[in-house]
């Protein structure tokens, strides 16, 4: 078919109603709700949540992922427009990574060396590494679905950012269950779980976000 013929065909469709892009915020609210319900049903909220929530070290468990998720969500909103370049954006992740390293080293510094291993490993390491990506799955799927209605020109990076955002949001949910309150534990394993979710997003991006 000649290019001009294609143009003639497409021109007939100009008046067609445009499919609006679904709201990313709405998708996040709904899918986080799903993760929360899953958590309450299968994991359960830690019984002492009400008492410990005011403790700074418990609070930042939820606060730091939230602070990472916000700029990620903003970037994802932009990434639906093809002219948005995501080049070099992932480098900003070094800031929260540095904060996590600082938290972990400070915590270990005030502990005797023979307590390091037990503090780092904790008692729920495997559950943590499994739960955060699992609870992040619905959130990530929702994000990819919304992104697909747009036209992200860098599906790999967009997927990675979506994965990191989903991992952070799922961490906020999972931290309602997890009673490991030492930064030496969550500074390492939450970070690892979020990066894992980010990696999954990076793999899924080129597959699902092509247009």
């Amino acid at each position, binding site marked *: *078919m*000649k*290019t*001009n*013929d*294609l*143009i*003639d*065909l*497409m*021109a*007939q*469709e*100009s*008046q*067609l*109603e*445009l*499919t*609006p*892009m679904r709201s990313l915020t709405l998708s996040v609210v709904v899918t986080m709700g799903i993760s929360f319900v899953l958590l309450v049903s299968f994991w359960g909220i830690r019984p002492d949540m009400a008492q410990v929530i005011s403790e700074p070290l418990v609070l930042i468990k939820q606060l730091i992922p939230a602070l990472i998720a916000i700029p990620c969500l903003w970037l994802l909103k932009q990434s*639906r*427009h*093809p*002219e948005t370049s995501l080049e070099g954006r992932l480098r900003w992740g070094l800031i929260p990574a540095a904060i996590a390293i600082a938290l972990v080293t400070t915590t270990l510094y005030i502990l005797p060396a023979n307590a390091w291993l037990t503090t780092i490993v904790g008692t729920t390491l495997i559950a943590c590494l499994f739960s955060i990506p699992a609870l992040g799955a619905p959130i990530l799927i929702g994000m990819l679905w919304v992104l697909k209605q*747009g*036209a992200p*020109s860098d599906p790999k990076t967009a997927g990675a950012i979506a994965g990191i955002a989903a991992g952070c949001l799922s961490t906020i949910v999972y931290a309602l269950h997890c009673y490991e309150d030492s930064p030496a534990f969550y500074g390492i394993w939450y970070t690892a779980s979020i990066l894992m979710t980010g990696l999954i997003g990076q793999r899924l991006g080129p597959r699902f976000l*092509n*247009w």
Partner: protein
Amino acid sequence: MAVLNEAKTAAAFKQALDGDNDVYRAFLQDISPVVRGLVTRKLPSFDSMGVEDVVQETLLAIHSKRHTWQPEKPLLPWIYAIARYKSIDALRARGRGGAAASDIDIDEIEEIEAPPSDFEESLDVSTAVNKLDGKLASVVRALGVEGISVQEASERLSMSENAVRVAFHRGLKQLVQMRSSLFGDP
């Protein structure tokens, strides 16, 4: 190389989005040479057939993703970004599945480099549309060739309006892909 004026092009596109078919056609015709120029520069290893495939893919993407343009933002960077994305995509596709130049038999080269000049002409719209799946063909024929409205088409073909839209778009997509496979490219 053709140059586009941001203000004029954006004004035309806005008018087209409001449903002016003639302005839309003129808009697509105006941006085609610029898209072609950009794709040619991005893909120096592609012959003119290969370039034209990418041009069509780009136009179709501009069409189906037109809701991702924000009217308060400049239009030309948006168009260029789509052309760039489709060029990279074509390059990647060729790297994956396409035959390397060395795989091509020497006898075939003549064929590839000099397609019969009237080949493209022979593949006119109605021939191409007839090759589509039944339902897609009737939708594309009704909307694209006869130019009836979505509403009329939905009544005549007893499909929902949304199904008509989806079928039309899928039909266009198949037409573009059909072209690539007919020319054996990549």
